[in-house]
């Protein structure tokens, strides 16, 4: 490893003398979920995460590789600390006129209003109706079991198919659909959980509890 002070950047270079990264995959190694390891052994997220962190610091990440010399170069910009400056926050610039989207503040507390008792207006399929709750009108979730079903929530027509690999030794997919706020609010979560397959349901439970509390 070596470090170099450049005019605008600090360079941190990590080098090894191994066989190198094959040219055909050099363009993919920073992609999320790309891995050359067997299923269950690699997440494919390591370099993706490194790249995100470096980008967050407005830095550059580069790979130079040939047999016998492979170098990952991390360049971080040289900046003077600004007294009293707050921590950098992620900023998203969206072109509203062209794209019709806008960013809102993170963690907006917009669904904390009280929800009166009401009934489910329409459910085509209900895996786990929330009989003992009045705020969450409908809850559909799946983790370890193969399911395929339609659902209609809050003006959205939906269809879900989940086919877990069996046995689930490396985690699993979970999905969660809920309807609350007088039938006007749909929540949908699709997650890929790393860990033991048995834990996926536990995570789904926690997810449901968290959403129900805010419903």
């Amino acid at each position, binding site marked *: 490893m070596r470090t170099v002070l450049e005019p605008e950047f600090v360079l941190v270079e990590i080098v090894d003398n191994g066989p190198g990264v094959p040219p055909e995959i050099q363009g993919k190694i920073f992609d*999320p979920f790309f891995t050359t390891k067997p299923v269950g052994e690699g997440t494919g997220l390591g370099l993706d995460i490194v790249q995100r962190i470096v980008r967050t610091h407005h830095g550059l990440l580069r790979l130079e590789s040939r047999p016998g010399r492979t170098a990952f170069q991390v360049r971080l910009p040289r900046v003077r600390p600004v007294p009293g400056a707050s921590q950098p926050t992620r900023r*998203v610039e969206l072109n509203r006129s062209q794209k019709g989207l806008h960013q809102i503040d993170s963690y*907006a507390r917009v669904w904390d209003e009280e929800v009166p008792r009401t009934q489910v207006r329409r459910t085509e399929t209900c895996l786990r109706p929330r009989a003992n709750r009045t705020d969450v009108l409908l809850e559909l979730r799946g983790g370890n079991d193969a399911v395929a079903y339609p659902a209609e929530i809050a003006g959205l027509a939906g*269809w879900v198919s989940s*086919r877990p690999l069996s046995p689930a030794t490396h985690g699993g*997919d979970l999905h969660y659909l809920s309807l609350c706020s007088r039938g006007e609010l749909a929540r949908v979560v699709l*997650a890929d959980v790393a860990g033991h397959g048995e834990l996926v349901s536990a995570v789904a439970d926690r997810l449901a509890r968290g959403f129900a509390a805010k419903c």
Partner: protein
Amino acid sequence: MIRELNDAFLQGAEGVQFATAFVLSYQSKLDELRYTNAGHLPPLWYRARERKWALTEWIEDEEEMSDLPLGLISGTPYTQVSASLEHGDILVLYTDGITECRNPAGVPLGIDGLLELAEGVPLGLPTSIGPALIKAVDDFRGTAPSIDDETVVVLQRLPNSPGQGE
């Protein structure tokens, strides 16, 4: 909410390492879609007005729309994006088992491949689009085995949403 989930993962009370997640809310009365992408693959979005499939990431030219997965770094900020769903718009959420499935020659489907499959699926309700997309993925895979969990969630704004115009 997402930040709390991230912290819950980090506590490791249930031994979970991390998770990627796409979380969305849709309020029918306001016709407002809000979503956060914690390291998950970008959903496909069919824009009915433009009659075109694209990734949710198309809304930005340069920056990534995906934040870090849950359970990696405490205090990670997550970005919530708000958008309007138009009648006929379709969202397809999926997990990496879909895009990493390989054909008998070992070629992975990839996100662009999934986009191409979606473009070939006849438009309709999610109950027809979803199974057709799954079949297209299965056809691509052919005799090759599944190597990961595969989940697809298809959502479409209904023409006459409950709560609309009340």
